[in-house]
C-alpha cells in the first residue's frame, strides 16, 4: 500500500425521486485491486458513472493524487487516467482491433488522415503486454467474448489508465479465461495500476481483491477495508445486513410422481447430443452448467424455437413434437421464463395487465379477435395476487416496477396461461437478495402446487436451495444427475466434479 491515487469524499447523487448515493467515500490505493460490492440498486453503477465522467459530480469531491478534479465528460476522465471496462461490450464490431483500441486517438483533427499502420503498431504493443495473440488488423466481430474483453482492457491500458474500473469482468468468461484474466490483473497491479473490481461472484472477490468497499442503499456499508480476515459471510452480511444461508427446507422427493416431461436421446440443431432427462409432476429439476454449456439453448429447443434433430420428447405420456412456442403453450402447457426478461420476457413500456395477459390472448380472443380487458383481468389477477406482485395497479407500466416484481410478472404470465411445465431460466439475475428469497419461496410453492419446474441457474446456492434433483450439463451434453441433499459443500463439490469430469481428482 503506497499512497492514495484516487479518493472520493462524501459523494452524493440524486435522480428524480431517488437518492442514489449519499455521502459515499472511496479510497483507492496505488497498485491494488479494490472490490466494489453491493446489491443491484445499491449505487455501484451510479458511483462508477460519477468516477468516469458519465454523470457530472455535483455533491462531494474527487481527489486525484490529492488534487481536486472535475470530469465533465467521459473524455476528461480518460484523459486523467481513469479507464473503464463496462459490463456490456463497448467495441465497434466491424472495426479492427487496432482501431478499436485507438478509437479516441485516430488523429489530431476530424479531418486528419487515419494512419492504420501506425495504429496497428501501437495497438500491437498493448496486445503484447497482455500476451494476447491477436492480429490487430482483425475485425473485432471475429473474436470470442473473452478476447473482446481483453481488447477492451488493452484499450483502457493504452490510454495510460492508472485506475481501471471493471464492471462484472468475468460475467461471460469460462473459468479458464477467468484465471487468465486474474493473472493479468495481478501483473497490472504489480506495475502500479489500481483496479476497481465490481462483481457479484464473491469467491472471485475473495480470491483476488486486496481491499473492499461495500455500498448498501446508496451509502457506505464499509469503506476501503482490507480484505484480510474477511470471508464470504462477512461480505454478504455487509451487502444485505444478514448472513446468506441455504434455507432449512425439507428435501423433496417427487420421483414417484407421474412423469411430466421426458427427453429420450434428444439431439438438437444447436448441437445437443443424447440428452436424457426426466421431470416429474411437481418436481423442481435443476439444470446446472457454466455459461455456454447449452442450457438455455436446450430450453429454447424444447419450446420449439429451434428444431430437434433426433430422440423423443414425451409430455404427460404423449409423444410431443413441438413446432412453435404457441404450440408448446397451447397444446402442451409448456412455458419458458427467459433469463433476459428485458429483451425476451417483457414489453417494458406496456402495462402489467398487457404483459401478464399476453399468453392468454389467443385463448380469450373472441369473434374477430376482440379481447375484453375484463376477461383478461379475471385470468391474470389470481396469478398476480398469488405471486404478490407489488404494483399500484394493473395499468402500471412494467418498466417502472423493480427487477423482482418484473420477474414475478414474467412468471405470472405463464401461470395465467395455465402452464403445467415451466422452464425458468436464471430467475434471479439482476434481483436483490431480499427479493430473491421471496422468489425462491414462490418457485417452491409453485412446485408444491403441482407445477413441474425445470430450473436453469448458474447460481450454486440458488440451485441447492431450490432443486430436488440436479442435472449437470457441459458442452451441450448431460454429464450426470444428482439428488439434492441440501448440503452445500457436498452438493457443490459433486456438481463441480461432474463439470470437470476426469479432472476431479486434482480439485
Amino acid at each position, binding site marked *: 500500500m503506497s499512497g492514495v491515487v484516487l479518493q472520493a469524499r462524501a459523494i452524493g447523487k440524486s435522480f428524480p425521486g431517488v437518492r442514489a448515493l449519499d455521502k459515499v467515500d472511496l479510497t483507492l490505493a496505488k497498485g491494488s485491486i479494490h472490490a466494489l460490492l453491493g446489491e443491484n440498486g445499491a449505487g455501484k453503477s451510479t458511483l462508477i458513472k460519477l468516477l468516469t465522467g458519465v454523470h457530472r459530480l455535483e455533491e462531494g469531491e474527487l481527489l486525484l493524487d490529492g488534487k481536486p478534479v472535475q470530469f465533465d465528460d467521459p473524455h476528461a476522465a480518460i484523459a486523467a487516467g481513469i479507464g473503464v471496462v463496462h459490463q456490456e461490450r463497448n467495441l465497434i464490431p466491424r*472495426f479492427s482491433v487496432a482501431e478499436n483500441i485507438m*478509437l479516441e486517438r485516430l488523429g489530431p483533427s*476530424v479531418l486528419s488522415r487515419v494512419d492504420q499502420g501506425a495504429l496497428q503498431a501501437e495497438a500491437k504493443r498493448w496486445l503484447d503486454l497482455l500476451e494476447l495473440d491477436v492480429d490487430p488488423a482483425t475485425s473485432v466481430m471475429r473474436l470470442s467474448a473473452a478476447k473482446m474483453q481483453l481488447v477492451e482492457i488493452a484499450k483502457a491500458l493504452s490510454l495510460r489508465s492508472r485506475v481501471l474500473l471493471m464492471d462484472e469482468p468475468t460475467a461471460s468468461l469460462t473459468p479458464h479465461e477467468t484465471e487468465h484474466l486474474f493473472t493479468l490483473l495481478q501483473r497490472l497491479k504489480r506495475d502500479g495500476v489500481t483496479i476497481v473490481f465490481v462483481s457479484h461472484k464473491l469467491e472471485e472477490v475473495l480470491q483476488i481483491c486486496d481491499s473492499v468497499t461495500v455500498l448498501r442503499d446508496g451509502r457506505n456499508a464499509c469503506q476501503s477495508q482490507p480484505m484480510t480476515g474477511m470471508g464470504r459471510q462477512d461480505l454478504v452480511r455487509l451487502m444485505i445486513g444478514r448472513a446468506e444461508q441455504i434455507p432449512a427446507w425439507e428435501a423433496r422427493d417427487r420421483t414417484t410422481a407421474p412423469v411430466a416431461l421426458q427427453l429420450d436421446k434428444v439431439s438438437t440443431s444447436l448441437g445437443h447430443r443424447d440428452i436424457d432427462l426426466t421431470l416429474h409432476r411437481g418436481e423442481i429439476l435443476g439444470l446446472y452448467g457454466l455459461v455456454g454449456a447449452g442450457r438455455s439453448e436446450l430450453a429454447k429447443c424444447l419450446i420449439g424455437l429451434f428444431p430437434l434433430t433426433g430422440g423423443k420428447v414425451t409430455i404427460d405420456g404423449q409423444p410431443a413434437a413441438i413446432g412453435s412456442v404457441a404450440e408448446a403453450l397451447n397444446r402442451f402447457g409448456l412455458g419458458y421464463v427467459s433469463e433476459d426478461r428485458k429483451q425476451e420476457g417483457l414489453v417494458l413500456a406496456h402495462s402489467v395487465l398487457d404483459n401478464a395477459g399476453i399468453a392468454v390472448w389467443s385463448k380469450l380472443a373472441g369473434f374477430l379477435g376482440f379481447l375484453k380487458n375484463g376477461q383478461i383481468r379475471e385470468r391474470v389477477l389470481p396469478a398476480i395476487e398469488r405471486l404478490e406482485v407489488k404494483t399500484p395497479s394493473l395499468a402500471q407500466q412494467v418498466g417502472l416496477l423493480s427487477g423482482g416484481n418484473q420477474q414475478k410478472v414474467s412468471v405470472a404470465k405463464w401461470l395465467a396461461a395455465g402452464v403445467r411445465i415451466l422452464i425458468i431460466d436464471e430467475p434471479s439475475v439482476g434481483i436483490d437478495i431480499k427479493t430473491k428469497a421471496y422468489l425462491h419461496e414462490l418457485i417452491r410453492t409453485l412446485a408444491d402446487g403441482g407445477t413441474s419446474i425445470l430450473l436453469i441457474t448458474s447460481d450454486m446456492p440458488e440451485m441447492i436451495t431450490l432443486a430436488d434433483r440436479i442435472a449437470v450439463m457441459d458442452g451441450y451434453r448431460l454429464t450426470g444427475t444428482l439428488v439434492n441433499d441440501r448440503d452445500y459443500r457436498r452438493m457443490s463439490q459433486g456438481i463441480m466434479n461432474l463439470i470437470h469430469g476426469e479432472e476431479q481428482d486434482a480439485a
Partner: protein
Amino acid sequence: MQTMLGKAANTDWFGPLAVVIVAVVVIGAIEPTFLSAFNIQVLLSAIAVNLVIALAQMIIIAIGQMNLSVGAIGGLVAIAFAGMMEVWGVPAPLALVLALAIGLAGGLANGFIVAKTGISAFIITLASLSFFKGLNLGITEAQPFYGVPDAVKAFGNTNMLGPIPWLVLPAAIAGLGIWYLLAKLRIGRQILAVGGNPHAAELSGISIFQTTVWAHGLSGLLAALGGVMVVARLQIGQPSIGDDWLILSFAAPVIGGAVLAGGHVSVAGTALGVVVVAIITQSLVLFHIDPFVVQVVLGALILWAVGINRWREVRVERRLRGAS
C-alpha cells in the same frame, strides 16, 4: 482461385457487379442500341446524378439514421440555384457556391436538431422535408425558373471525353471524396463508429453531437450538389426536382450492401447499386415498358437486396457460432 472467388463473393460489390455485367451482356445482345454511344451517355448522366443523391443518403445510413429530406434539400437548392441566376443575375460559379452553402446549411440544421434534441432523424427530417418543400413552393409558386445560363446547360448536356458526360466529373469527385473520408479520415471513422455502436463510441470520447452534425452537413452538401446537377441536366429550375429521390436514395446503398442499422456502407457498392437501378430503368424504356413498372421493379429490388444482406449476416453469425 476458389478462395479468391469466395472472398470476392463476400464483398459488397460482387453481387451488384455480377448483376451489372450479366444485364449489360444480355440487354446488349437483345438490343444493340443499348450499347450505342448516345445511350451510354444518357445512362452515365443518370448514373452521375443518382450517385450523388445516393451518397447523400448513404452517409446518413452510415451513422445509423435516415434522412428523408434529401430530395427536399435538393429541390430547394435547385430552384435557389436557377432562381439566383435568373432573377438576380448572379454569375453561375457564385450561384453554385451559394447553392451548395444552402444545402450545407439545411443539412447542418438537420444534424444540429437531431443531435441536440435526441429525437430520431426520421422524425426531424420528415419535418424538415415539409419545411424545405414548403419554402420551395412558396418561392416558386410551383413555376419553374427558365433563365439558366448556357454554360450551365452545356455542363449538363455535353461530353467531357468520348461518350462520358461532364456530369460524371462532380459525381466521381464526390464518390472518391466520400470513400476517402469514410475509409481514411478521422471524421469518417467516427461516423462509422457511431453507426456501429453509438454507446461505445461515446464512451471512447467521440462526440456524437459533432459526428451527427458533420454527417448531416455532408448529406445536405451532397443533396445540394445533386440539385445543381439536375438543374444543369434539365436546363430549368423545376420546383418538383427531388420529389422522386427518396426510394432511389435508399435503394442504391442497400443494394450496395449498406446495413440500415448503421456502421457499414460501401461507396463502390452504392455506385454499382445506382448502375443497377439505371440499367433497369433504361432497359424498360428501351423495351417500351410502362415507366410506372420501374417503381414496382425498384421495390422488388430493394426487398431482394435487403434479403441478400440479411442472408449474409446470418451466415456470418452461424460461422462465428460454429467457431467459438
